[in-house]
Each structure stands twice: as C-alpha cells, then as structure tokens.
C-alpha cells in the first residue's frame, strides 16, 4: 500500500497552489474577522460566548439563516474546488501516467488523493479556526470548549465529505470540463434545490398513495419524511449537528425547518427522538458522505482505461 506516498505528493503539490493560498487567507479573514466584528464591536461583554456566533441560528420560517450554515456553504465550495480536478487534470496533462507507472494501485491513488486534498482543506480550515481562537481570547469571549471543539471536528468532517464528493466526480467524469460542470451542478443542488425537493417528495408520495388507493399519509409521517430527507444533505446534517453541540438534539432537529414542520415535529421530538433523528445517526450520515462518494468514484476509476 503506497497511499501515503500519493497523499504526500498530493499535499506537497496542492499546498503550493495559489487557490489554496487564497482560500486559507479567506478562512483566516472570515473565521477571524467575523468573531472580531461580532464580539469586539457588536456584543456587550457579558454576552460574549462562542455560541452567540458559532451557534447563531435565526429562523424566520420561510427563510432561515445561521452562521454554521454560511460556513458550510463556503467550506463546501472550497473543498469541492480543491478536489474536483484531482483526477481529470492529471488525465488531461498526462501526469497520471507518472502516478500509475509507479507501484501505486488505483485504490492507493484514490485514498492518497482523498487524504492529501483533505489535509490541504483541513490545514486551511485550522488556520482559520486558529484566527478565531486568537480573537476569542483577545475579546475575552467564553470559549465553551466542550461545544466548540466538537463543532470544529464536525467542520473538518464536512470538509472531508466535500473533498470526497469532488474526488468522485473527478473519477466519474471524462474530462475536466465535465467535472467542472457536474461539480457546479451538484453544488447548486446541495446549496439551493435540495430543500424544495425534500419538501416535494412527501407530497408526491402522498399523492401517489391516494391515487393507488392506499389512502393518504398522515401529516406527521409526511413531515418526518421531509425533514429526514432535508438532513440527508451534508450541508444540513452539519448545520443541525452544529446546533446540537450547543442546544441539544430536540431543538437542533428544528433548525432549518419551516414553522409548519416545527409545529408538527416539536411534540414528536419532545416525547422521544426517533433513531433516525438522533445525533449519532446523523453523524453516520455525515460519515457516509465521506465513504460512499470515494467508493463510487473508485469503482469507476478502477474499471476505466486511462
């Protein structure tokens, strides 16, 4: 197994890219600047707790905004950009022939790339969180280590998941152009379209059930299906898990839901949390977003002629 060699090569290569320098700088400015602005200027000293920014969720029913959600959007974009060309570009330049002339199996190549590129994203992210840390200390903000550190870990996992997604697109695509378009399309789905689709599916199921004469689905079931589908989106999985580290699972499962969904879901969650809404299950979903894309990509790459 020589995936370490590939990972090292990937890291050394990517760490010299201007794109990475740019995104590291961006993370440093964003993750340092936002708390500096928030805790340094906007918030009175007695309210300076990490949760007030990194656990900031504003729910306006039709429109919700959260700081973790924004971070997830940015991180998803950066991570995809770091990885979507990792195979197609090597194919197009021909450097893949050097990579695979050496005794690296295609599995080594996939795993090495996943690790190397993830390391690059994680380094950029950690530089950013280091800036946050400095600002938090400087402004005398409560660190809430027990919540903040798990949230950083979740952020790292989300970054790796999107590296894995980009890498699989790179393995599946025939050309760099195709990989670019697929990545842009998929990002659009995650960032914008997923919500509407996951709200539409229960309605469609309900309609189908009525048509075939099984009778309509209960409202609770429809909401459960809709919210569950929503949390399959890695961006939303991350968001709700981030909320959980600060506010516990019951409240966290309601972030990013609509008022209608909240009204129906609240009593259900209060009674007992179904296993598919537990933190552990959602964490499993996030991990699946790391494992499954890279596995699918590997299958395609394994079969392909160079």
């Amino acid at each position: 197994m020589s995936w370490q060699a590939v990972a090292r090569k990937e890291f050394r290569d990517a760490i010299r890219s201007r794109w990475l320098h740019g995104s590291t700088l961006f993370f440093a400015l964003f993750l340092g600047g936002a708390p500096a602005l928030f805790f340094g200027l906007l918030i009175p000293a007695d309210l300076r707790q990490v949760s007030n920014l990194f656990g900031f969720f504003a729910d306006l029913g039709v429109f919700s905004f959260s700081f973790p959600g924004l971070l997830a959007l940015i991180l998803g974009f950066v991570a995809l950009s770091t990885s979507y060309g990792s195979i197609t570009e090597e194919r197009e330049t021909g450097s893949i022939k050097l990579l695979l002339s050496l005794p690296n199996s295609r599995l080594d190549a996939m795993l090495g790339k996943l690790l190397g590129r993830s390391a690059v994203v994680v380094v950029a992210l950690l530089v950013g969180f280091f800036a946050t840390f400095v600002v938090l200390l400087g402004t005398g903000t409560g660190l809430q280590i027990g919540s903040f550190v798990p949230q950083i870990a979740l952020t790292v996992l989300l970054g790796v998941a999107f590296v894995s997604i980009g890498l699989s697109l790179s393995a599946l695509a025939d050309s760099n152009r195709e990989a670019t378009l697929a990545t842009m399309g998929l990002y659009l789905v995650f960032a914008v379209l997923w919500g509407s689709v996951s709200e539409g599916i229960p309605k469609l199921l309900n309609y189908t059930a009525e048509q075939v004469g099984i009778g309509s689905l209960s409202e609770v079931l429809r909401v459960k299906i809709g919210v569950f589908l929503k949390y399959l989106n890695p961006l939303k999985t991350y968001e709700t898990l981030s909320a959980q580290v600060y506010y516990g699972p019951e409240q966290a499962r309601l972030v990013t839901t609509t008022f209608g969904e909240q009204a129906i879901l609240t009593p259900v969650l209060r009674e007992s949390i179904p296993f598919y809404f537990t933190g552990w299950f959602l964490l499993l979903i996030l991990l699946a977003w790391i494992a499954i894309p890279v596995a699918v990509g590997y299958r395609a790459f394994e079969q392909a002629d160079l």
Partner: protein
Amino acid sequence: MSAIELDGVTKRFDDVTAVSNLSLTVEEGEIFGFLGPNGAGKSTTINLLLDFVRPTDGAVTVLGHDAREESVAVRERTGVLPEGFDVYDRLTGRAHVEFAIDSKDVDADPEAVLARVGIADAADRQAGGYSKGMRQRLALAMALVGEPDLLILDEPSSGLDPAGAKEMREIVLAEAERGTTVFFSSHILEQVEAVCDRVGILREGELVAVDSIEGLRAASDTDASLRVTVGERVDDNVLSAVRDLAGVDRVDRDGDDALRVACDSDAKTRVVTELEARGVSVTDFTTEEASLEDLFLAYTERAEDVEATGADDETDDEMADDETDDDEMADDETDDEMADGEVANEPDEAADEPDDETAEDAEVPR
C-alpha cells in the same frame, strides 16, 4: 521465465482496433526494440503492460505476473518512461524523485538519481519550468529509482538533443549490463539499431516481424539494393521489363546514368543479363546492404503498395503533422492510438527527424 509475454492480445477502442491478436515474448536480460510508425499500436501495447488499458482479449504477463490482476507487483519491479506524460508543474525535480522513492518504498538518494540523468543542478526548481528534454530526463530518473528488473521506455529520446539521446542510450546499455530487461518503442531506427538485441515491427496493430536485425535483413526480400551504372538513359519499357523479373521489388532511376534496384540476392545476375539483352550498356554495378530504414519501410509499407500508389502528397502532410506532435506530448497519445497507419514514407525525412527535434527542443527552461 520471460520478462514480457503477450498471448493473442487484442485491444479495441470504441471505433478502432489498436492492437490485434498480438503474441510476443521478450526474454529476461534482452534489449527489445519495438518499432512501428505512429499509430501502429506501440503505445497501446505498452499501456497494456502497465494496466493503463485492459485487453479486450488475450493474456498479458509481465515478470511472471498477470498485468491486470497483479499490476502493482509488476510495477514494483518495473521502471517506466511513459509517452505523452507530463510532470507535476508545482513540484520540484527532487520532489518527483522522492515521490518515486516513496511509492517504490526503497532507499535511494534523489540527488544521485538526478545526477545520473544530468539534471542535478535543476533539482530544486519547479518542474513546470523544465524544458521537454529535462522533463524526459526527470521521468527517466523516476524510472531508474530502485534498480528495476524491467525498463519500459516509450519513445525515450523524444525531446532530447543528440547528446541527450546518446546519454539515454548509454544509460539503457548500463542498465542492460546490470541484467535489466529493456523494452523500448521508437520510430527512430538508428537508436534501435544501436542498442537492440531483437526488434519487433508493429504495423496497424499487428506484429509483422520479430527478429534480430541481422535476421530481419536476411529474411527481408529487400535485403539487397543493386546500383547499376549504365551508359545512357534507360527507356521506361526497359524499366518495366526489369521490374517484371522474378525477385525484383522495385526499380528506380538514380540520375540518368544509373538505376537502383531492390531485389533478392539471387536476382542480381538476372537484372544485369536482362539489361544487356535489351541493349543497355552496363558499365558497373555495386551491391549495397539494405539499411534498417529500408527494412522498416519494407515491412510497414507492404500493404500500402497494393492499396494506394498516388498517396505521396498525403504522406508528406502527415509527416509534417508528426513533427508538430512531437512538441505536444499530450496530443501525441491520441494521435498514436487513433490515427490509423500513418506511415513514415519518406526515408529522407524520417532520417532527418532526430535533428529536427533537436532544433526545437534545446535544453533551456521555457
């Protein structure tokens, strides 16, 4: 055990059969030259050895391992200089060699390997700034890491100046001395002649000959070329009469006072007798041994002689294309695989090619 064994190997891409029912054995310790015009399937064959592409049919065994199932084991003991590759622009030369050392899991000094291929002074520069010749040397350095048992070199001297090509030859010979099997492809004949124990000639995906160079000479029916000096210009009908003789391949005028005849050895006297019988005064004649160039053309052209005669213009165009391709390695592969039967038809131009490349690829960083 043989180093390379291809048994009835066929590789079809969507619309092209790149290699067709190819069987070939290369013994351990041999230097084997794989010859053929661009598009003959040389690179595809090498890609099959390395599991870059998978055979449609047939079995490929390298160093006793199945090339598909045990590819990593094959590549652990094989050094490869691929064709149509590129370096990692942002990594230094040293980092490339370190990547090879890491991947092969061996102990080696990057400095020493780079010195061996003559680019030690550029070790700490990013390879993106290397000239094509330097990139070629860098890939050779990566191939040499870990003292491989088999070296596979695909068009190794492309991008190298004559001095570079000579160094490459010396390295190949030194490796062979060590007992390494060397398998290399080329469309430049001088190189093959200089180092190879045996050669195989590939044409349109089929192996048309495998033998030592002497063996090829003996087997080829254009093994001799006869130069006949005559008193006056010879009529066309006399030419065609000579052409019709048994054992005569071709007859051309060599100026007004000489003829050049490609024929079997035993047909020589018949040619001279025929000329004299037709009233041509033969003042002198000499026999020249067929050059490898002639052999190569004889093998690669044969089918085309039947198919097309007036295709000279087209061939010239294709030659021009070839020279451009040598500059753009990435495109090379596609051309190699897709273009069917581009034959280097003009002996003079083909012979000039190494020099042409020299002019274009002086060893200065871009």
